[in-house]
């Protein structure tokens, strides 16, 4: 259900936060299959270690999927997602619990559309920022 009302939106409005269950290696294998990203760094420990890592790491795009879910839980299906971007800041590994938060940074009208920009952060349980993102939503 969409909770967005254009009039009530303002800079600083927070999105309901999204807490994801701990990432598992099984999830990474499922994600590799579903997304088609078969870089062995995400499921082959030997390969990951040859790359200088301690073990397998999560797909950055899995974190971006969580960033996307934060936004779609808030805005879909009533409002339109115009743009979504994510910058990957730190490695995520199996066992990490990722929490995404977001808040409105800009409310404006352009080409007859009512738009908001949202800034997003993904953090692990230690509080490290693993990704930052932004989204633009056209509010109906």
């Amino acid at each position, binding site marked *: 259900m969409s909770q967005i009302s254009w009039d009530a939106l303002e800079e600083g409005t927070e999105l309901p936060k999204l807490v*994801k*269950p701990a990432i598992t290696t099984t*999830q990474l294998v*499922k*994600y590799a*299959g*579903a*997304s*088609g*990203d078969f*870089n*062995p*760094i995400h499921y082959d420990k030997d*390969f990951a270690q*040859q*790359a*200088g890592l301690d073990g397998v790491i999560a*797909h*950055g*795009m*899995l974190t*971006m*999927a*969580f960033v*996307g*879910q934060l*936004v*779609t*839980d808030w805005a*879909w*299906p009533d409002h*339109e*997602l*115009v*743009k*979504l*971007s*994510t*910058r*990957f800041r730190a490695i995520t590994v199996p066992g990490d619990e990722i929490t995404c938060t977001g808040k409105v940074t800009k409310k404006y009208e352009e080409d007859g559309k009512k738009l908001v920009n949202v800034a997003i952060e993904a953090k692990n349980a230690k509080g490290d920022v693993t990704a930052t993102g932004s989204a633009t939503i056209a509010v109906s």
Partner: protein
Amino acid sequence: MSESKGIDPGVVGKEYPSYTFEVEKGRIRAFADAIGDDNSLYQGDDPIAPPTFATCFRDGEFTILQDLNVDLRKLLHGEQEYEYHRPIKPGDVLTCTPRIASLKSKETKKGTMDFLTTEVQITANDELVCVARSTVAIRH
């Protein structure tokens, strides 16, 4: 003389052959399951795809990485951006056209890194559906 095996800047702007991707309901469900998103929009007879589902058509990016002889062990996904023109849904036959959008070299604590941005234009029946931009960091 530098011994850098960096990527030749002359490749910027290079376009690669288009390829098609046919969107299937089952793939959308498998993707939603892998990212742990139980939004009802991704279920049922008439679903749409989660925003980062567009990563499933990243083949063109891997074609580019292969063409440039990039070692996947030396690569990290730095940033991803999507511009959406409409949601992706089952039955869509998407035409994806990849190109190399930019290449920058930067000195970092870990040595020289190449930041390669690829762009994939995704259309259906000549109508723009989505533009995907991906930036990867490559250690020399």
